[in-house]
């Protein structure tokens, strides 16, 4: 278990958001590997490739060009090999409709992007820690809903 690392992916078209995200994980004392993709098409191409290692948790921006977060979510949920990935929606919107809709479509986590770096680190640490408990303790993933 000591050698395990947590495999994390972010798909977000905003360059600054991607940078903040990877910086935040570098400062957290967690054993993580973070990969980022610039839009939904890039992300799905990767996940669909034969030798892709599925992440433990996937952070998905809702508003992306070419393929939106919702479209990715639907494709992932319809796919057998990706169904184990915990999906975290990572969005600037905090509308109740968006939140409930994405949960109903199968997202596990909904995060409103925090405005400052300190808050971001705190939120990401908490999300990854709770997700890790689901991953390592055979908790029922169908019942895993978390809103931050």
């Amino acid at each position, binding site marked *: 278990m000591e050698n395990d690392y947590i495999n994390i992916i972010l798909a977000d078209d905003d360059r600054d958001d991607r940078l903040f995200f990877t910086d935040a994980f570098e400062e957290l004392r967690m054993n993580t590997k973070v990969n980022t993709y610039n839009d939904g098409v890039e992300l799905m191409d990767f996940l669909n490739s034969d030798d892709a290692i599925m992440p433990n948790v996937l952070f998905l921006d809702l508003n992306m060009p070419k393929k939106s977060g919702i479209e990715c979510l639907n494709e992932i949920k319809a796919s057998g090999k990706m169904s184990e990935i915990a999906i975290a929606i990572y969005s600037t919107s905090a509308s109740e409709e968006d939140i*409930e809709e994405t949960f109903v479509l199968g997202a596990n986590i909904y995060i409103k992007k925090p405005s400052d770096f300190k808050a971001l680190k705190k939120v990401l640490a908490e999300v990854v*820690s709770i997700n890790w*408990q689901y991953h390592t303790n*055979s908790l*029922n993933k169908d*019942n895993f*809903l*978390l*809103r931050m």
Partner: protein
Amino acid sequence: MKLFIKFDFNTICKKVLETKLNELRIKYRILAFGEVELLEKIPADVYEALSNALKDYGIEIVENQKSILVQKIKDVIIDMVFNEESTINVKSSVYLSEKLGHSYGYLSNLFSEVTYTSVENFIIIQKIEYTKQLLLSTDLNLTEIAFKLNYSSVAHLSTQFKNNTGITPSAFQRIISKRRTIAQQKN
């Protein structure tokens, strides 16, 4: 038609263990709390075959001493939460340290070091997990569940649920039931 299913993880695990151990002709004795005693030395290839066979079921052979103790802490907590009759009115710190023969300080430090969470938080996660399960698979309402899980009040459970998941118990029920409706329409 819809079937509502309730299962007991301990029974399932025990059954899987027995089947796999028998298949590999290993002589064993199953002890309490996720411990299996092998009654004779087994060759490395058999050990590996067992480890792989169990992995398919999400069962992992825990190898080092720290991980073993952490796993025991988790097992005691899960048993404490899910078999609530066994522990009424016992403080969890006292219960853990009596059950495992180490001071609570030692157990709690070790636990935080290995699991990315604390013992206290792990207990809450398990209680919320049990609450979710009860909400979805029984007719109990939140007040009855709060009583069953030894909460001082329904408000306390409700607040803890919201703090832990970010959503209220009723929103949780509504979302899961919408998901089920959609899944049914697809079939």
